[in-house]
Structure formats: structure tokens, C-alpha cells
């Protein structure tokens, strides 16, 4: 393995193609941490945004006027404002209003760190789109199915979790897929509030080694592969959830 990494040092000496995140063990560690951080942030946001989408879509069908209004207000605000401004708003504005806590060394630190705020803000951002996506799926379920379930004594929550949501899920998976891919790409914004994810670490490395071109190309390829894996997983999931005889 070490000879494989050393080969890149030779490559640098011979051709000038500088890939320090392969031959330098320190940079390799940084890049790997950044990669893990991107995956961690993506998974946390994917999870919470889908949860927000499911709950939001249920509340949107509520019979209470104000519940629906609040959900719609949330969707419109998060869809029509830039995610970066949302991130800054959460991190700087709301973060500064929260109380500070004492850490292990007796110093003051904010209640929530940059990773937590990035996770919260991006989950809400993607969640707003997910609510809309789930709603469009729910609309595809005919009223008669809901009525049949009600006739069998299901209550509203049971109808949602057992009848309409599983059906809606299959209809809206392509759109959900698209939004989740966007979410993974949006995690790069966490760079702006110093979450040490892949773009941030790449920036550190190119600041030290002045190899912007190589790092940029590596980043593009890395995200391309990351998104490729996600799309592959989602597509195979979509296939396995397919209703026989429905759709092409």
C-alpha cells in the first residue's frame, strides 16, 4: 500500500501532478476525515429531511387551518430564500441568541457547533422540498382508497402510515431521489461555516501545496462518484419497491 502511495510522490517529481492527499500521510488523514464528514453530514441531513417531509406532508393534510398555514409558510420561506443565507441566519443570528455553555476546559462555547447548525439548516432546507414531494405523491392516491380504509376503521394516522404513505412513497421516489442528490451537493455550503467537510479540507490542502487544479479536479470526481453511489442505491431501491404491473 505504501509503495502505491509513494508512486504518487514519484509522479509529482516526474510530471508535476501534485496529489499530496495520496502520498502525504497527514494530508491523507485530513482528506479522509473530510470525506467522512461529508458522508456523515449527508446521512444526517438525508435522514432528518425525509422525516421532516413525512411529518410535514401529514400535517399539511390536517383539518386544522393553522397547522396547514404554518407548514405552507415554512415551505414557502425555505424554498424561496438562498440556502447559504439560511445557513448564516441559523449559525450567526440564532446561534448568537442561544446561551453559551461551559466546556471541559472551563471556556465558553456555543450551545450548538457548526456541524449541528449545518445539519439543522440543511435538513430544514431539503425538508421543505420533501414536504412538497410527498404531497404530490399523496395526491396520486385516489380518494376511494382512503375511503375504503376509513370504512375498515382506520383512523387518520393509520390511514396515513399504512395506506397512503406507502403508496405515495413509490410514486414520489424519482422526485425524492432528485432532491436528495441536490442535498448531498448542498452539503458543500457547510464549508462557509467551517464544518471540516471535503471542500473545506481540500481548501486547506491547496492553500498549503498550491495545487488548486489537481484538488479541484479531485473534488469534482469525488462528488461525481459520491452522487453516483447515492443514485445507484436509490435506483435499486426504486426497482425493489416497484408495484408489479404499474409504471414502465
Amino acid at each position, binding site marked *: 500500500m505504501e509503495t502505491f502511495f509513494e508512486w504518487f510522490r514519484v509522479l509529482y517529481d516526474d510530471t508535476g501532478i501534485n496529489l499530496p492527499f495520496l502520498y502525504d500521510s497527514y494530508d491523507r488523514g485530513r482528506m479522509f476525515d473530510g470525506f467522512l464528514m461529508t458522508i456523515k453530514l449527508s446521512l444526517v441531513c438525508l435522514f432528518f429531511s425525509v422525516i421532516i417531509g413525512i411529518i410535514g406532508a401529514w400535517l399539511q393534510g390536517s383539518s386544522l387551518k393553522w397547522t396547514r398555514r404554518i407548514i405552507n409558510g415554512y415551505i414557502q420561506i425555505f424554498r424561496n430564500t438562498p440556502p447559504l443565507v439560511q445557513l448564516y441566519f441559523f449559525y450567526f443570528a440564532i446561534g448568537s441568541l442561544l446561551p453559551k455553555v461551559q466546556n471541559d476546559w472551563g471556556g465558553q462555547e456555543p450551545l450548538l457547533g457548526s456541524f449541528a447548525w449545518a445539519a439543522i439548516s440543511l435538513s430544514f432546507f431539503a425538508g421543505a422540498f420533501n414536504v412538497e414531494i410527498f404531497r404530490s405523491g399523496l395526491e396520486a392516491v385516489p380518494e376511494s382508497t382512503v375511503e375504503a380504509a376509513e370504512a375498515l376503521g382506520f383512523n387518520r394516522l393509520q390511514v396515513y402510515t399504512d395506506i397512503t404513505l406507502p403508496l405515495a412513497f413509490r410514486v414520489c421516489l424519482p422526485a425524492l431521489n432528485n432532491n436528495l442528490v441536490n442535498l448531498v*451537493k448542498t452539503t458543500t455550503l457547510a464549508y462557509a461555516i467551517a464544518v471540516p467537510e471535503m471542500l473545506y479540507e481540500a481548501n486547506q490542502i491547496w492553500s498549503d501545496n498550491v495545487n*488548486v487544479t489537481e484538488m479541484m479536479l479531485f473534488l469534482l470526481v469525488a462528488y461525481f462518484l459520491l452522487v453516483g453511489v447515492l443514485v445507484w442505491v436509490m435506483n435499486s431501491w426504486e426497482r425493489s419497491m416497484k408495484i408489479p404491473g404499474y409504471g414502465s
Partner: protein
Amino acid sequence: MKHTSAQSILPVLLQGKGKALNGFDFSPKLWHGVILLAVCLLTSTISFAQSAPAKISVIDALFRWMPLLLQGFVFNLVISVFAMAIGTASGAALGLGQISPNVAIRKVCWFVTQFFRNSPWLVLLFFAMFLLPFEFSVFGLKIPLPDWLKATVGLSLPVMANVSEIVRGAVNSLPSGQWEAAESLAFSRRQTLWEIILPQCVKRMLPPWMNLYAILTMATVLASIVGVSEVMTLTGQALAAEGGRTDLLAPFYSFVLLIFFIYCYPIARWTVYLEQKFAVKG
């Protein structure tokens, strides 16, 4: 026919039809913006109550910096319009390449589209900022390339890929009978594309295209990360100039949220309206 037979086999699902639950129809209302305004004002007053009497009030500070911030916002709009123009022109060409009869052109255009569509906007922006020269010379004439222009190019790359997909999707959504009918009337491929297919596609492409424009407008703030002095950078500078007062953070950032909302919201509503108007009946 296929659709109806699928329905008779499986009556549990209808595609894009059926009424919403409880007959509730989602339609965005203007008061959603009022909430944002309320947040802006509320945070201003809360902060005002917290701040010491010696300093100027939060609302005064906001009013003092508002012209500068709005100028920055106009700059954002300029970037978005340029990026959209470049992206649409190149994306349309790329999209037509994706439906070319030539396999090589089709493959290359598909790959380029997928590559730029699946890369984060911010990474592409960094890409353009660092890899484009700050000036280039044509026949000894030096043409400077300011950073905002580089940011515009960087933002137009993902727009290009998305427009390419919109064009391809719209062309593919037309029934193949259109192509066959044109062929039987002895139209050449180019004539079919320009005189029959594309005019019908414009209607279908408009809503997603406008959606993309709204997304692009919101993405222009990314340029602040790479040092273009647009509204986000100016907000940061204004806050620094006020001496880093923490009570100003919430009102200033919610003000930025508000101006973007005011701009993007009508576009979103109009898109919904057009989508309903152009919806294919079936």
C-alpha cells in the same frame, strides 16, 4: 390505452390525478412573506430591547445600511441574469446535442450534462474562480476578467447542464407521432426540429426554466464565499463596520432572507400558474 389497462389491473394508484386529502389545495399565499417580515421586525425589537442605549437602534442601523445592501442585491440579480443567459444558450446547444442522431455527439453531450449536473455548485464556482485567468490577451489586447465575471461563468456551468436536461426532457415528452407526421410530410430533420418540435417544447420548458432561474438567483450568494462583493459580503462588512454587535446579526440576516423572498416568491407563483396553464390534459 396502456395507461387505462394499467389502471384496471391496479386501481390503487392514479398518476398525477385524484384530489388532495381533505380537498385541501395547496396554493402559496402572500402572507407567507409577512411571516418573514415579522421575524425581521421581531428580532429587531428583541435585539433593540437588549442593546445599550448609547448605541444607535437596530432599525436605524438597518435603514442606514439598506441602500448598500440593496445595491449588493442588484449586483446579485445582474450575475443571475448573465449566468442564466450564458447557461441557457450553451445548455440549449448541449440539450440538442443529447438528441442528436450521431451517437458520438449524443454520448459526449450526455456525459458533459451528467458531469456538471452532479457536481456541487460551490465546487464548480471554486473551479471557475481559481482556474480561469484574471486576464487574457487576444492579439496583444489584454482583456481583464473581473472576479464577478468568473463567478458568473462558474454559476452558468450547472445552469447549462440543467437547461440541457430540460431541453432533452421536453423534446422526449412530445409524442413520437409528431416526428412521424412531420416525416410523412417530407420535412427534413432540421425542419422538423425547428418548425415543429421546438415551438411545442417552449411551453413545456418555460416552468422548469423559471424554476431554475429562481434556484440560480438563490445560488448567487455563493459568490460571496469566493470574494465577490454581493449582498452577503456587504452584509458581513456592514456588520463589521457596526463593530460586530451581536444584536444586529439576526435583523441583518433576516433582511437578506426577506429581499430574496420578495424577489423569488413571485417567480415561484408564476411558475405554478404556468404549470397549471400548460398542464397536459389527460
